[in-house]
């Protein structure tokens, strides 16, 4: 009967448990994919000393990790891609998926370039940090930004400036880029002004009603 079919479907749905810091970082994209697809998940957020206490017993010694019916999967973008495939956020062809992947890896390269700037950026309002922040912004942040957002702008225009980085559907790279833009807007207002195509992407992605709903109800963290 109907109830049996429902029970079977419930039994077939995997149980997801996602463990990360209490923050957005590289974990946020997975949470967004769950919410956008109406998939229940346990959203474990480690605060304070909790991570250091369990680090040595954790699967790979870093966060995030995902459990799917108890089976462990590590590495933020392997997790994001796995969920995106399950829920339909990887583009419509193998070529599109590859471009999403390529932009994801380019984002990681940008992240590595930006690393020396991030710490002064987070600490810019602490005593004596202002000068270091300004110096690293000029020497590290701006060149890294110009290189990465230049690439993004080129790809976005090539794709028709249609509200998506790749193809004509929302993909996980849209979520990664736009969330990061929000972080930079928070810490360095004006940092991304002048990248008009990226502002267009940001506006259009954030207009997604389901995403807007998540952004309103999620725990609020600066990054």
């Amino acid at each position, binding site marked *: 009967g109907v109830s049996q079919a429902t029970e079977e479907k419930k039994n077939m749905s995997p149980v997801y448990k996602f463990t990360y810091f209490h923050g957005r970082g590289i974990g946020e994209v997975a949470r967004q994919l769950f919410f956008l697809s109406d998939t229940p998940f346990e959203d474990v957020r480690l605060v304070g000393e909790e991570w250091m206490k369990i680090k040595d017993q954790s699967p790979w010694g870093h966060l995030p990790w995902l459990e799917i019916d108890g089976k462990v999967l590590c590495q933020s973008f392997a*997790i994001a891609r*796995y969920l995106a495939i399950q829920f339909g956020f990887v583009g419509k062809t*193998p070529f599109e998926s590859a471009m999403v992947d390529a932009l994801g890896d380019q984002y990681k390269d940008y992240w590595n370039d930006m690393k020396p700037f991030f710490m002064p950026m987070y600490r810019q309002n602490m005593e004596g940090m202002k000068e270091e922040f300004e110096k690293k912004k000029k020497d590290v942040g701006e060149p890294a930004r110009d290189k990465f957002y230049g690439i993004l702008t080129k790809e976005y225009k090539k794709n028709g400036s249609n509200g998506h980085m790749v193809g004509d559907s929302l993909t996980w790279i849209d979520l990664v880029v736009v969330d990061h833009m929000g972080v930079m807007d928070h810490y360095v207002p004006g940092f991304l002004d002048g990248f008009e195509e990226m502002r267009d992407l940001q506006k259009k992605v954030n207009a997604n009603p389901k995403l807007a709903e998540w952004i309103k109800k999620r725990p609020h963290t600066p990054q």
Partner: protein
Amino acid sequence: PVSLLAMPSYKLNYFDARGLGEVSRQLFILSGTPYEDNRIPKDQWPALKEKYGFGTLPVLEVDGKQIPQSLAIARYLAKEFGFYGANAFEAAWVDALADQAKDFLSEMRPYFVIAMGMAEGDKDKAKAEIALPAIKKHFDLFEKAAKDNGSNGHFVGSKLSYVDILISEFVFSIDSFMPGSFDAFPTVLAVRAKVTSIPAIKEWIEKRPKTVT
């Protein structure tokens, strides 16, 4: 039978090096797929940079359409040719190990630039403080993965995947700088032995251009 006319034309653009391009070359070879192995001399690169969307190499051209980023390329080819695990979860594990391997390379970079004479520094100090800890941290993980997978000569599942090739090549490169670096990781070395025993790969390794990296 697949018509040759139905196959896309493939061109892999990279430097004359193994590096991040080699995994894709071996995927072509393993699948018996013809491809153009375009090796760009370093001095020609600045003038050609503009041609490539992200300004980096490698770039794969599939019927002229570009895919940049080494692992995006490797994954695309692995999917096409069947070297991407037997199901979605295995594929995700292949990707996770590949990303971990790339993290490993990033951590090794400060050692490499000194070891290759591209930056000032004490080579022995860099080895002790950068290279050896990075190798231990990441290869403990790879060793465990290979063991947990049943010590069957693969990191994931029961068939060759692109991460078997990727990590095997990193082992080869680093061993050439620091012989014996992976003696403590016999299950990883067994994966490399299995990859390199494939006749087509064995033949390729013998005849491929000999480069430092």
